[in-house]
């Protein structure tokens, strides 16, 4: 299999031990993209980003340029950075935050300039202690070197950036919950409409919320131009993307690959990437795009890693995570653990999510531990259908945010793909995997 020789757009410095320092950043082209952006008008910067079709890398895949263009005109506009990476098996923003904080800061200032924000909050998952230290340290250096603060590089553009720690809640990765959290409240998602951040965001002002990886692409886009970026990938899925590969592979880790030109098979099996499944075991299933995504079987391995390609096949690239499960994996146990996560992390506002997650978790656990009934398998699908009527993809929503309709993804996938395995648990009164 051939892995395309695409440039490293967001991971170019990670080979250096000191990739997080200002000295290394400046010696590798750091802040050149910002200088270029500041020589253009904000509108020109925004249209350059709009032209590259930079699909948001947080999970929803909404184009960054379009997000910016939807801002309500107002005297105050906020930019908020979503660094609350918490989708299970997703660990690529964590890497960028710890290993290349200046790249993030540069992307932040470029975006702030484009939307003319003067105050930015970088919301970083509270558990990322080293990440918080690295970003604060980089930010202090960036202020001292004139890349952040008043009159940046003598351009007449000023912006303040504040690093804000979260405190442990998955739902705060949802952008309106993140804004509530940033306002010092419980992380309850807001109902949309009317609370689209671009219209009514932080403190009621128009706000853009962009993901860490999304913003980390901007310095490269500014230096190399939108045409170079668009030349990579295909269709709407341009550029490269980080994939966090985990589970039953030889080389779990974060890989930057060209979108669409790379397949799941490449990612999992190429010797320079995942390196295949250890122990000569066979692939059972993969979870593409975070645990909110429906599962794929081996028949999907040759699917290109593109947003629409994966969407059309009934799942999503989502948060850029790929979990590999080999044939020793118990599908009931895997679905149970994912469901337990959603049950723990449901904010509790909406009944289908709060109650449905608990019902599913309890039912899956009793099947897994041998106390299940044959009717439980249909019960699972019935509860899933209550959470997301029709169980289609993209899912129908019965709740304020998308956490609710994400819950059936694993459960319905496991039942549809491995129904016999559920029935064996019930018949034997035990998990066949021990």
């Amino acid at each position, binding site marked *: 299999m051939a892995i395309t020789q695409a440039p490293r757009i967001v991971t170019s410095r990670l080979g250096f031990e000191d990739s997080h320092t200002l000295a290394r950043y400046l010696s590798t082209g750091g802040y050149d993209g910002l200088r270029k952006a500041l020589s253009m008008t*904000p*509108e020109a910067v925004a249209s350059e980003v709009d032209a590259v079709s930079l699909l948001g890398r947080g999970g929803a895949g909404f184009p960054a340029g379009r997000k910016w263009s939807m801002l309500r005109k107002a005297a105050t506009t906020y930019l908020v950075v979503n660094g609350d*990476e*918490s*989708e*299970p*098996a*997703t*660990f690529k923003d*964590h890497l960028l935050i710890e290993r290349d904080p200046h790249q993030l800061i540069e992307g932040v200032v470029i975006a702030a300039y484009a939307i*003319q924000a*003067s*105050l930015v909050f970088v919301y970083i*998952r*509270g*558990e990322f*202690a*080293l990440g918080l*230290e690295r970003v*604060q*340290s980089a930010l*202090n250096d960036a*202020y001292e070197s004139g890349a952040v603060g*008043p009159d940046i590089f003598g351009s*007449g*553009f*000023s*912006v*303040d950036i*504040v690093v*804000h*720690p*979260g*405190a*442990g*809640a*998955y739902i705060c990765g949802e952008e309106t919950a993140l804004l509530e959290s*940033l*306002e*010092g*409240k*419980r*992380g309850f998602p807001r109902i949309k409409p009317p609370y689209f951040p671009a219209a009514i965001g932080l*403190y009621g002002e128009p706000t853009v919320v962009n993901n860490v990886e999304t913003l980390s692409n901007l310095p490269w886009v500014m230096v190399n131009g939108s045409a170079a970026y668009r030349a990579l990938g295909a269709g709407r899925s341009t550029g490269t993307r980080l994939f*966090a*590969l*985990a*589970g*039953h592979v030889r080389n*779990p880790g*974060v890989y930057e690959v060209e979108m669409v030109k790379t397949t799941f098979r490449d990612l999992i099996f190429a010797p320079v990437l995942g390196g295949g499944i250890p122990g000569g075991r066979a692939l059972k299933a993969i979870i593409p795009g975070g*645990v909110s995504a429906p599962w794929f079987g081996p028949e999907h391995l040759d699917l290109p890693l593109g947003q629409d390609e994966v969407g059309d096949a009934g799942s999503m690239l989502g948060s850029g*995570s790929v*979990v590999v*499960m080999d044939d020793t*994996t118990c599908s009931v*146990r*895997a679905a149970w*653990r994912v469901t337990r*996560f959603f049950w723990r992390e449901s904010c509790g506002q909406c009944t289908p999510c709060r109650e449905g997650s608990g019902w599913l978790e309890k039912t899956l656990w009793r099947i897994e531990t041998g106390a299940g009934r044959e009717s439980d398998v249909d019960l699972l699908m019935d509860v899933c259908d209550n959470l997301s009527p029709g169980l289609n993809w993209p899912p129908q929503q019965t709740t304020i945010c998308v956490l609710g309709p994400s819950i059936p993804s694993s459960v319905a996938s496991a039942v549809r793909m491995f129904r016999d395995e559920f029935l064996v648990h019930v018949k034997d009164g035990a998990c066949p995997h021990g």
Partner: protein
Amino acid sequence: LSPSPNEGRLSENVVARARALLELYPHPRSALIPICHLAQEQDGWLTPEAVEEIAALVGIEAAEVLGTVSFYEMLHTSPVGRYVVAVCTNIACLLRGAYELLDHAQRRLGVHAGATTADGAFTLEESECIADCGRAPCLHVNYRFFGDVTADDFDRLIEDLRAGRMDDEVPPHGTLTRVQRPFGLRVDPQTVRAEREAMAVAISSRASGAR
């Protein structure tokens, strides 16, 4: 558990840092969670006295502080051990032996997940994904991450922590970031207004010049 040196009250240093945090936000309540982290840096958890003081600093009721605090996994309203050891068991770790590691941790520490050892040294938690899945199974101790953890690694880690050999790497529970922001906001709102106006003028003159 050792009593707090200030009997739960926030030290002058913490109060000063909290006031500096309040200056960073247009609305004081936004500083609530960062200030809670500061209070935990002092005591490892949020004492009732600290909650009252935080409420006064932020300008809200103590009940509102608790309303926010109770939502978040990292904020504690009862004492925790000097070291909170959190073993991830979510999907990526589960596939690579996380539950076996958690079982071992429970036996080694003699407590179930969710409990604190009798000497107050360790609180064991079963954690959700901590985004270190490339090194599964993984855990964190006071949010310092350890990957590819075997049972032997775990035992060594506990011994090292107990013996104080990791004090540099793993500060006591509550210390999130040891890098401070040494200054407040630097951009004056009036300057911003002037800049934006100048920018608008420049753009319109460029546009008319091009015509």
